C-alpha cells in the first residue's frame, strides 16, 4: 500500500526582512534596497508516513517542524520538492482552526467542514456529534468572537476529529485546553490509531512521542536528523538538545555497557564532545546476589559509572535521570543540583549513585546518565535510557510509588504483615 504521506525532499525558504515594507509607497521609496536574508526553514526533508501509522515530528522551537506541518497541510507550499497526501486531511494548527469571528459556532462548524471537503448534508449528519464532543451545546449559536480560547480550541478539535479524516495533522494543540479535554483528545487520537488512520503530529514533548508514536522524525534547524523508532528518535533529540552546537558526528566508538540487570549496549552514534565519556554502567542491587535480576520495592540500588577522560577536566558534573517505560520522568538530579564538588576527571575513573531505597512498585525503569560541564552547557557524554532495572512488587498494593505507610486504629499502630505492602 502506498504511503499516506510522502514528503519528497522538500525545502522551504523564507525571506527575513529587517524591515518589512507592506505598502507600495514604502516599496517605491526603498526600491532596490530592501534588505532581506534568505532563511531555510526546511532543507531537503524527505520521509514517508505509512498509512495507518502515527509519526511524531520532534524538534526544538524554530526547527521548522510547524512549517513542515503547514506544508503537509497545504497551507504553505514548499520552495522545492513536493508532498503527496492520500485521503482527507484535517489539520489542527496552533490555536483554533480558522474560524470567522463574526459567525456563530454553528456556522463556523459548517464552514470548517466545508473547507475540509464535507457537503452540507454530510455535516448536518455529524453536527450533533461535533457539538457533543466540544461540550459547547449552550454556546453553539453564539458568535465565536465571544468564545474563550479554550472553547475555540475545543470546537476546532471537535470538527477536525469528527469529519472522518484519513490523515490527522496535529500541532501542539494537545498541550492546550484543560486536562479533562486533553485526555479526551489523546483518547481520540488512540482511537484513530486503532481505526487505522494516519496521524502526523508535531511536538517537543518527547514523552508524548514515546507514548503514542510508531515512529518519529527529528528536525534540527530545518534539517532532518533522524527518522527512526520513537525511543531512538527521542534519544537523538535529547542529545541534539543537550549537545548544543556540536553536531559533527564522530566515528563510532566502542563502549561496553553491561548493567547486570538486563543492560542494553549503548548505540555507537554520539553527537557530543568526548573529552570525558562513559565506558561502563553497572546497576547493583541486593536481588542480584540472590540470583534474581529484579528488585523488590524499597530495596537499595547502586548505579556505578566508569568513565574515561582523555584530558584533565576540572569542570565536570554527573547527572542521572530515571524514566518509566511510558516515558514519564520520575527522577532527575545531578551533582550540581546536589551541591557537590566533583573531583577533576583525568584518565579512568569511577563514581556511583547510591540509592538507599528505591520507592517504586512494579515496572521496568530506564536510567539515563550524563556527564556535562558544570554549567550544563557542554555535554561530554549522554546515555539516554540505556541501562534499566526491574522492580517486582510481591504485594497487592498497586500504583507506581511505594509510599511508606502506617495504619492506626484508635491510636494503636497496626503491624503490617511481611510482604504485604511498602
Amino acid at each position, binding site marked *: *500500500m*502506498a504511503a*499516506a504521506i510522502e514528503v519528497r525532499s522538500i525545502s522551504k525558504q*523564507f525571506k527575513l526582512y529587517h524591515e518589512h515594507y*507592506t*505598502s*507600495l*509607497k514604502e*516599496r517605491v521609496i526603498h526600491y532596490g534596497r530592501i534588505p532581506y536574508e534568505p532563511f531555510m526553514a526546511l532543507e531537503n526533508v524527505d520521509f514517508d508516513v*505509512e*498509512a*495507518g501509522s502515527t509519526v511524531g515530528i520532534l524538534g526544538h522551537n524554530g526547527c521548522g517542524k510547524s512549517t513542515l506541518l*503547514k*506544508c*503537509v*497541510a*497545504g*497551507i*504553505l*507550499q*514548499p*520552495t*522545492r*520538492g*513536493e*508532498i*503527496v*497526501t*492520500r*485521503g*482527507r*486531511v484535517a*489539520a489542527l*494548527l496552533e490555536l*483554533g*482552526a*480558522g474560524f*470567522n*469571528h463574526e*459567525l456563530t459556532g454553528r*456556522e463556523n462548524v*459548517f*464552514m*470548517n467542514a*466545508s*473547507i475540509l*471537503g464535507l*457537503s*452540507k448534508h454530510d455535516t448536518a449528519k*455529524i453536527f450533533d*456529534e461535533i457539538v457533543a464532543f466540544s461540550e459547547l451545546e449552550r454556546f453553539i449559536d453564539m458568535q465565536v468572537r465571544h468564545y474563550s480560547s479554550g472553547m475555540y480550541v475545543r470546537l476546532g478539535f471537535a470538527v477536525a476529529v*469528527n469529519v*472522518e479524516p*484519513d490523515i490527522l495533522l496535529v500541532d501542539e494543540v494537545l498541550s492546550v485546553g484543560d486536562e479533562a479535554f486533553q485526555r479526551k483528545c489523546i483518547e481520540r487520537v488512540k*482511537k484513530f*490509531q*486503532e*481505526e*487505522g488512520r*494516519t496521524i502526523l503530529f508535531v511536538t517537543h514533548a518527547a514523552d508524548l512521542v514515546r507514548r503514542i508514536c510508531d515512529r518519529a522524525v527529528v528536525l534540527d534547524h530545518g534539517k532532518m536528523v533522524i527518522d527512526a523508532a520513537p525511543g531512538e528518535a527521542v534519544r537523538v533529540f535529547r542529545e541534539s538538545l543537550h549537545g548544543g552546537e556540536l553536531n559533527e558526528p564522530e566515528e563510532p566508538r566502542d563502549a561496553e555497557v553491561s548493567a547486570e540487570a538486563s543492560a542494553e549496549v549503548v548505540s555507537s552514534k554520539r553527537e557530543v564532545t568526548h573529552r570525558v565519556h562513559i565506558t561502563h554502567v553497572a546497576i547493583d542491587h541486593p536481588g542480584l546476589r540472590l540470583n534474581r535480576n529484579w528488585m523488590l520495592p524499597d530495596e537499595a540500588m547502586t548505579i556505578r559509572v566508569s568513565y574515561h577522560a582523555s584530558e584533565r577536566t576540572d569542570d565536570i558534573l554527573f547527572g542521572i535521570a530515571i524514566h518509566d517505560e511510558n516515558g514519564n520522568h520520575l527522577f532527575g538530579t545531578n551533582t550540581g543540583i546536589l551541591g557537590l564538588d566533583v573531583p577533576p576527571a583525568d584518565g579512568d575513573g569511577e563514581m556511583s549513585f547510591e540509592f538507599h531505597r528505591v520507592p517504586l512498585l512494579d515496572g521496568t525503569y530506564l536510567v539515563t546518565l550524563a556527564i556535562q560541564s558544570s554549567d550544563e552547557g557542554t555535554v561530554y557524554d549522554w546515555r539516554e535510557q540505556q541501562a534499566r532495572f526491574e522492580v517486582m512488587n510481591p504485594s497487592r498494593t498497586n500504583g507506581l510509588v511505594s509510599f511508606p505507610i502506617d495504619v492506626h486504629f484508635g491510636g494503636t499502630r497496626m503491624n503490617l504483615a511481611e510482604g504485604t505492602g511498602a
Partner: protein
Amino acid sequence: MKHMSAPPSRVPRASGEATVVRARMTAHERLTRIIQRRELLVGMVRNELKIKYKNSVLGFAWSLLNPLLYLVVFYIAFTIILGSAIPAFPIWLLSGLLVWNLFSTGLGAATGSVVANSGLVKKVSFPREILPLAAVGSMLVHFFLQSMVLFVVLAIVRWDLAWAYVPLIPLALAVLLLLTSALGILLSAINVYLRDTSHFLELALLAWFWVTPIVYQFQLVGLREGWSKWPWYANPVTPIVLIFQRAIYARLDNVHTVSGIRTVTPLLPHWPYWAFLAYLGYSLAFALLTLTIAVRVFGRSEANFAEEL
C-alpha cells in the same frame, strides 16, 4: 463515530484521492481545483452576506439605497443642472450603473478578501482563489437585488425593451463576472504584499468610471474623430454597459423638435446584433488574458500568503 463499527485494529484505511502540494501548479490545475470546490464557494458567499447584514437593521435594504442615491444625485446634476439630452434618464443611468456597481464593488471586495480572511488562510488549506471569487459572488447577489429597483421602474413606466438584444444580457453578465473575478484574483494577491492596493484601486476606479459611458451617452465620444475616443473603445467594460443599455434602454437616438427644428441626439451606436457580440468578444478575450495572468501571479505568491499575513 459511535454508530460505526471500528475496523479491525491497525488496519490502514483505504487511501483516498491523492493531493499534491508543490510550488508550481499549472493554471489549468488551479482552475480545476477551484471548480471542484464550488460548494465551498457557495458557502463562502452565503457567509459573506450573513456577516455583512448580521448587525444591520435594514439588512438588504441598504444595498438598494446605493443605486437610488446615485440616481437622485446624477438626475439632479445631469438632467436638471446640465440639461442632459437623454430622455428617461433614470432608466438610462440604472442600466449602466448596475453593471458598474457590480464591477467596482466586486473588485473592491475581492482585493481585500485574502487579507480580510487571513485567519482562514493561515489555518486551513483550500484553493485561495475562492476568497476573491466569493467576494465577487456576494456582490452578484447585490446586483440582482439592485436590479429589482430597475425592474420596478421599468414596470411602472411600461418601458419597452429591445427584446432581440435581451439574450445578450446573460452573456454580457457572464463576461463581466469573468473580468471582475480575474482582476479581483490578481489584486487580492498583490494586496497581500502591498497593503495600500485598495487605495490605488479606488482612484483607478474613479477614473475608470468616467471612461465608461454610464452617465453620458456613448455616442458623445464614440462619434469623435481621431484617437481621443480609444480609451472608451479599449475599455473592456464599455461593451458590457452598451449591451445593457441597448437591450434595456433601447433608444438609439433622441429626436426632438424645438420650434419647428428637428434635432437628433445620437445616444447609442447603430450597430447590428453581431457587432455587439463581437465587441463583447473583445471583453471576453481581455478577461481571459487577465485571468491567465492573475492565476499565474496568484499561484506564485500564494506559497507565502500564510507567512506574509
